[in-house]
């Protein structure tokens, strides 16, 4: 008689508060180049959404065109996605977020998509405080069209071909602060811990989050003369602080260390704990933040972390005083005026 030896039980994958595993947050297989910084960002979006117990069906992903704009296909298949046209992701996010204010909006764009062709839409989406996490996957080049300079390329930086960029770069972060954005951060795709903490805080934020992630393009912009290569960014990355994010549901249980740590509280009760590394940086001081970023840029450094935060600004649906339920599903009874009302309108025109 033979007895099958019972195999060791497979340990169940850990679940989050909603009972989902991390597998529930993944998307289709990436088709980007191996080692592309964009894939590292995708991985942290998956982690942060899983750890923050984000409801996948509420997540809506928007993008323009570029290697970066392909990535919404690679995370959270539970959510809907809209890969639109080059540079126009912000207007796509605007319309859908107005149609249904219960959606959790993630926009993914590139430095070309947002700082060149889509500059107008970027600027105006930020002004309007569209409720969305706006991620710029910033590699200083146009990846998808094979390595031309983008508008974030540093002056004097080289292409692989040897061509030199003569124009000053546009910095999405100082620009966003200037435009009144209430959550501005810069990260490096090679620093997953920091990116993870910022994404979790971003999920809890109500308005536009501008997140510029330096994300090397290994195929076209990772050479020695590039200021967006893994090596260069690692050597020039100056994290501002250690960030901790505490979701509102956990606030009770978590003890926040006193002393060095600054706490920023969101309207929903969530808290960001900021432990300064860079001395004297005050992320709630708008003008101070601008000054510090400009000074560091002049020295060729990347200040990374939460650059500026003001959690109290009303997002667009609130400014428009929209009803709480999604406009998309309002019924005819609420939308169509009555025959008596038409009659009143007609009388006034007689």
């Amino acid at each position, binding site marked *: 008689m033979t007895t099958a030896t019972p195999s060791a039980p497979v340990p169940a994958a850990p679940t989050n508060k909603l009972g989902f595993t991390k597998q529930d947050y993944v998307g289709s297989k990436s088709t980007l180049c191996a080692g592309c910084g964009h894939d590292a960002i995708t991985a942290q979006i998956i982690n942060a959404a899983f750890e923050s117990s984000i409801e996948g069906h509420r997540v809506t992903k928007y993008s323009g065109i570029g290697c970066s704009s392909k990535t919404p296909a690679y995370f959270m298949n539970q959510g809907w996605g809209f890969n639109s046209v080059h540079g126009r992701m912000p*207007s*796509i996010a*605007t319309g*859908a977020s107005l149609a249904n204010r219960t959606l959790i909006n993630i926009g993914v764009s590139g430095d070309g998509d947002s700082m060149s062709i889509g500059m107008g*839409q970027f600027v105006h989406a930020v002004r309007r405080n569209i409720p969305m996490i706006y991620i710029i996957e910033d590699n200083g080049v146009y990846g998808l069209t094979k390595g031309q300079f983008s508008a974030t390329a540093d002056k004097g930086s080289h292409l692989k071909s040897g061509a030199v960029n003569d124009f000053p770069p546009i910095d999405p972060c100082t620009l966003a602060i200037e435009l009144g954005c209430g959550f501005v951060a810069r990260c490096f795709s090679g620093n997953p811990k920091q990116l993870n903490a910022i994404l979790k805080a971003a999920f809890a934020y109500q308005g536009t989050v501008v997140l510029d992630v330096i994300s090397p393009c290994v195929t076209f912009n990772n050479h020695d003369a590039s200021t967006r290569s893994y090596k260069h960014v690692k050597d020039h990355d100056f994290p501002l602080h250690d960030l901790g994010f505490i979701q509102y549901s956990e606030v009770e249980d978590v003890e926040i260390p006193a002393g060095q740590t600054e706490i920023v509280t969101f309207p929903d009760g969530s808290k960001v704990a900021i432990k300064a590394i860079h001395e004297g940086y005050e992320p709630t001081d708008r003008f101070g933040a601008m000054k510090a970023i400009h000074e560091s840029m002049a020295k060729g450094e990347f200040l990374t972390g939460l650059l500026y935060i003001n959690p109290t600004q009303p997002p667009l649906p609130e400014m428009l005083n929209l009803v*709480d339920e999604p*406009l998309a599903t309002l019924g*005819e009874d609420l939308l169509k005026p009555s025959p008596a009302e038409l009659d009143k309108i*007609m009388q006034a*025109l007689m």
Partner: protein
Amino acid sequence: MTAALAAPSPTGGAKTRINDFSIQVATVNGSGSQTANTVLLRAIFQMGVFVSGKNLFPSNIAGLPTWFTIRASAQGYVARKVSNEMLILMNPETAKEDIAKADPGALVIYDEPLQLDKLRSDLAYTPVPFQKLVTASCPEPKLHKLVKNMIYVGVAARLLGIDMEEVKKAIAKQLKGKAKAVELNQTACMAGYDWAMENLEDQDHIKVVRDNKTQGLIIIDGNEACALGALFAGVTVVGWYPITPASSLVETFIEYAEEYRKDPKTGKSTVAIVQMEDELASAGVVLSAGWAGARSMTSTAGPGISLMSEFIGLGYYVEAPGVFFNVARTGPSTGLPTRTQQSDVELCAKCSHGDTLHVNLYPGTMEECFQFSYDAFDLAEKFQTPIFVVTDLDLGMQNWASKPFAYPAKPYDRGKVLNQQQLADMKDWGRYKDVDGDGICYRSLPGTPGGKGAYLTRGSGHNAYAQYSEKPEDYLEVMGRLKRKYETAKAFVPGPVFRNQGSDKGVLAFGSSDPAVIEAQDVLLAQGLKTDYLRLRALPFTAEVDAYVKEKKVVYVVEQNRDGQMANLFRETYPEHATKFKSVLHYDGHAIDAKSIVDQITAFEQK
């Protein structure tokens, strides 16, 4: 002292034209004459006489010349009439030219200091001391410029025989009951009337006589009618960017939304209206809101459609609904921004790169502006595609008399949208699977709970399951189905309307050309030429249009553009009948008139 001036009849005692004449008022843009002109129009309307008004205004805020034409017609003709029986000349800049162009025998009311009466001897002059009258009737000097125009209304009312009670009523209506302004304007108007009573002899050239033709009618412009259609259709997201002549569509909608689109329980708004940074962004908002399940729209003109065209192709290919109003103006480029044309026909029929075909609605009356706007939202959601409602400046911004609008009782058609339960029950759902064979697929909306139905919309190649694909067979399947969907639309768009006189000769027109075609048809009939008129109301062409084209020996395609764009669409759709289509064109920026049509058709017939 003003000499009492008779307004003789230089035509030598020709019969009085009762309720059948045109008045042209020449003023300076920004002088407030629009109110006075509308009052005059309304007063004639209230006398029960069919009347239409056309404002020919410059692309300028203040200072350039503007002309307003009022046509009264006992027969109910409302197209622009080229000849005018009365001129009111208030603009020193254009007065001499206006006189030179005047039709012999016209009555000319003018500002006395202009001294126009020596210029021609075949006109009947009435100089009016406007400054003197205004000073006497209005105590506030800074309002003189505004109320001066009301004086000519009073003078004209006297000469035409319009009841002053009707004029006063029209003033109250126009100024929406603002008591002080109403009184001021009524006083000025009365001053003009009294002066004319005392100082002018009556004339018998043209007269308004009370009739009952306008009982129960409304006066409205097309932009307001379209705005009302959208209001009743339950539009919930509006993204727009200002442009003449389309702005007032959304601006009027905003006014109505203030009153009719608040949740009675919370006072919160049931519509999101955002003035975007440009038309590209407006199109993005419309399509993504439609994609997310809202009823969405924008209103623009040709330059805006040009900018939107990349997005419109996206909407077509990913199958996102949205309503695009194009209130057309004179192109190309900036063109004549305040003048009318029908020159975006081909642009809207095939807007965007690649193979695209769009459903277009062409309202030709105020009732249709209302009804088609209402229907456009159903069509957008039913066919999951951008829908164009194409009007023009003439329909959109001019005043038109109309029957009051019928209540659109038909419930909304929200199209093939799957809810959570339906998604759960469905075995093999694919966003772009043609389950019913009509080319229209089932869609799901973002945010639907239950873990089913999520997909990624992309403007790049995709298969029936919305997956990225570059395979030729997948591409062909989607493009073939989109064509099929367009074919399906034939049975759902408004069919043509006919005005047949029993002829194998066809006249085909659309939109704002309608009144001029009707009048031209009557003139041609009087000259012995019968025609069958088909007014096209939509793309794609329906079965009735097919039959008409096959049956007619010749089809005169009347349109307001240079290149005969609609005729081109017909030649392309019906190549075997291509030689039947003859273009009758009018495209100088003024609304089309009957005479232009008659002359061109007559010339073709004599060939």
